[in-house]
């Protein structure tokens, strides 16, 4: 080889989880000093590939070379030793410690008695930050810094540990536009010194701005790598959703008109609702007999918003009104009594695994079922009706929920709100991880509830979910409501282009 080997070279990488292919025969090469964008839908394989690089997944087929040397990482430690660091969406810095301590975390300098040499630590951290062109006080407490700064400190830490390949997972999702700008400035400056960056993101505008070239993943395959200067957002979206593949394309670019019912009475309304960094100034209306979809990337604030509407979180500012009356929710119990219902985004937060189905179904209606003493026979009868309604198989109310399949469990979680219908039903990721039949069942149930005049809010990070269920769609982005699709033509690529 005449010139130096590339920092990272992967060939024929395949990886499957329990018989399901997550990556199929992927080749990937990263060049020195390059910033590479990595895009694809949820589950397209980009994160899986990077987790292999970072040593998180040790089992895979194919070969990986770092600086020309064949490697196979067994742990994140192995990867770090080989100079590969990852900065996750959820930062792993310690807010109680100082910046200096965070930069040198795990490698604090000690004097000859084995005691931490504070002066040297602050000096080294300060020099390092300065060398990277970052003007951050090493004495500052990490938690007192804005998130953008904390992220830069974490990047510095990864660099300080000797990494020459740095994987950034959704680095801009929590940043304001000026913070994004500063991050990009720092990245551009840093790469002059040699390190290469992989930039995984859903924010395609950001990817196109910072990357030298972009690699698109679709269904576990690396579809294409192209120079960022030659392409635009629409081009990326088409590749991401598999356009150009005949009948596949039809499904994704198919447009349909949203059946928005803008004249129906408003059931639940928020005005200027804000909560810390999670979301700001959210004003929305949920109408009777309408399914309002909120689509946004992970961490965009939709989960927090949904939890606020159900009284689990308390907003810093703003108002909520149910049927015109102002709501002050002190607890989820108050929310339920007001006529709100909530299905959380994961099964673990909605089910009592060690209890039979019927207790899971009746938990939310015990007050209306019994004044003081339980009526187990009545409970079983009602639960039997409900689980038949949502197609839980087998429909045996005494079965422990733990013994059901995932899709059935999720339907049990939904069934508890169907006996006495709520005024507003909030569904978080209602079809995530479900099989075909279960998904169809959920769509049917939601449509049935809509016909009965309930206001329904669906939040999801999957475009398919909101597109399949919603009559009106709000796009949420970094804690703010952006584009609204109402009574117009939508398709998946339009939705992605708006987010």
């Amino acid at each position, binding site marked *: 080889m005449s010139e130096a080997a590339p920092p990272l070279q992967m060939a024929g990488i395949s990886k499957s989880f329990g018989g*399901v292919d997550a990556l199929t025969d992927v080749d990937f090469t990263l060049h020195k000093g390059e910033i590479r964008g990595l895009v694809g839908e949820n589950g397209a394989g980009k994160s899986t590939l990077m987790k292999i690089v970072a040593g998180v997944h040790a089992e895979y087929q194919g070969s990986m070379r770092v600086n020309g040397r064949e490697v196979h990482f067994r742990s994140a430690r192995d990867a770090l030793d080989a100079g590969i660091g990852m900065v996750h969406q959820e930062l792993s810095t310690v807010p109680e410690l100082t910046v200096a301590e965070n930069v040198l975390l795990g490698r604090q300098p000690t004097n000859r008695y084995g005691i931490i040499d504070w002066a040297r630590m602050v000096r080294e951290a300060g020099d390092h930050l300065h060398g990277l062109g970052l003007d951050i006080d090493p004495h500052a407490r990490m938690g007192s810094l804005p998130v953008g700064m904390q992220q830069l400190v974490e990047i510095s830490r990864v660099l300080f540990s000797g990494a020459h390949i740095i994987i950034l997972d959704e680095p801009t999702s929590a940043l304001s536009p000026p913070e994004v700008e500063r991050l990009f400035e720092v990245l551009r400056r840093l790469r002059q010194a040699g390190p290469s960056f992989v930039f995984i993101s859903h924010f395609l505008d950001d990817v196109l701005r910072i990357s030298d070239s972009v690699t698109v993943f679709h269904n576990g395959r690396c579809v294409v790598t192209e120079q960022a200067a030659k392409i635009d957002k629409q081009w990326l979206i088409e590749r991401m959703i598999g356009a150009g593949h005949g009948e*596949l394309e039809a499904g994704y670019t198919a447009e349909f008109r949203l059946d928005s019912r803008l004249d129906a009475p408003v059931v639940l309304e928020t005005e200027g609702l804000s909560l810390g960094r999670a979301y700001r100034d959210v004003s929305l209306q949920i109408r009777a007999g309408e399914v309002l979809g909120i689509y946004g990337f992970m961490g965009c604030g939709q989960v927090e918003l949904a939890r606020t509407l159900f009284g689990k979180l308390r907003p810093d500012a703003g108002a909520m009104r149910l049927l015109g009356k102002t709501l002050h929710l002190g607890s989820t119990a108050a929310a339920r009594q007001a006529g709100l219902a909530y299905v959380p985004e994961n099964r673990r937060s909605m089910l009592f*695994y060690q209890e039979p189905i019927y*207790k899971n179904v009746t938990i939310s209606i015990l007050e209306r079922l019994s004044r003081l003493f339980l009526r187990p026979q009545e409970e079983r009868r009602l639960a039997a009706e409900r689980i038949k309604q949502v197609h839980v198989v087998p429909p045996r109310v005494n079965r422990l929920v733990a013994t059901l399949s995932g899709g059935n469990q999720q339907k049990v979680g939904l069934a508890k709100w169907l006996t006495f219908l709520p005024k507003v039903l909030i569904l978080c990721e209602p079809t995530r991880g479900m099989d*075909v039949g279960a*998904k169809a069942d959920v769509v049917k149930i939601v449509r049935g509830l809509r016909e009965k005049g309930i206001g329904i809010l669906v939040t999801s990070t999957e475009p398919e979910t909101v597109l*399949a269920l919603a009559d009106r769609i709000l796009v949420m982005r970094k804690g703010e409501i952006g584009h609204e699709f109402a009574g117009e033509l939508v398709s998946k690529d339009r939705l992605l282009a708006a987010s």
Partner: protein
Amino acid sequence: MNSQANLSARTAFSQHHEIHTMTALGTDLATPPAIPTTERLAHWLRGRMRNLAPFVTLLALIIFFSSASPSFATGSNVWNILTQVSVSAMMATGLTFVLLCGEIDLSVGPMANAAGVLVAYFTLQDASVNIANIPLPGGVAIVLAFIGILFLGLVTAFGVTRIGIPTFIMTLAMMEISSGICAIAVRGQIAYAVPDLVKTLGAGSIGPIPWIVIIGALTLAVGHFVLTYTRFGRYVYMVGGNREAAEYSGVNVRMVLAAVMTICALTAGLAGILGVAHFGSAQQSEFDDFTIDSIAAVVVGGTSLFGGQGGIPNTIIGLFVLGVLNNGLDHVRIDSFLKILIRGLILLIALIINVYAQRLRAKEE
């Protein structure tokens, strides 16, 4: 616009998406392979280890002590054991509620002590007892003692649910506060006089049956009834089983936690008030050992340390395991210092089984 076309486009849309996930979730639909009988039996036993282990332990202890000592398996000794576990039984009832919620109360002994001391404080004492107490009619003394303990329970509940102090720490503070109240009230003295009603229920009998056994059994029975047949009882199990899910189901988790901490204080108070009559005096640190004894009874009985599993029947078995052990060790005339060690070991084994049982169940999820 034609909504028909819209709908079909959507259906095609969602169907297409489903094709992707179908393979991913195909495993869900697979039927489990046939399981051989022995394996099924093992599975059945594993699932019931929480209930079986304490029961087997109890049987083993009874068989062992019966064969080791002729004085153990006698009618009068059965009454001894029943009487000995009665005070713990009352405390353990409230503790069962607390542990079922996945919480702990370390203050039950001193709380019982405070209630006992209070009832003595409001009773006319012998001239030899040098405390500046306030003699009141017996009924009033009992009511005041219960009001006092109710107040302490509400303080615990407030600290845990409103301020957010973990029960472990909050009840540690209440332990000291209760001990402090006792110290101030009795000032190192021993008070012997209690109201007549308390004296009867604590130390008297109806025929051959000591009242305290009846009250202990009644407390357990009421506890069992509440936990099994009332809405509140269901909430206790659900909050312990999965607090987050309970909250997202609209259960008022804080209210349930506040209630169990208060109930636990009240049953401890009952134990303390009757206990001073049972033991014949009210004094400082009288019930300190009962904290560990009653927590041990609940845990040894198999109620999960993590909440949601177990109940009063478990607690009853646990009470008997410890009661038989304590009583039996006296009959086989063992070194009394070794006795403490043996109890410790039994508790450790119970804890291991408890955690292991939890893990087995978690694996099934």
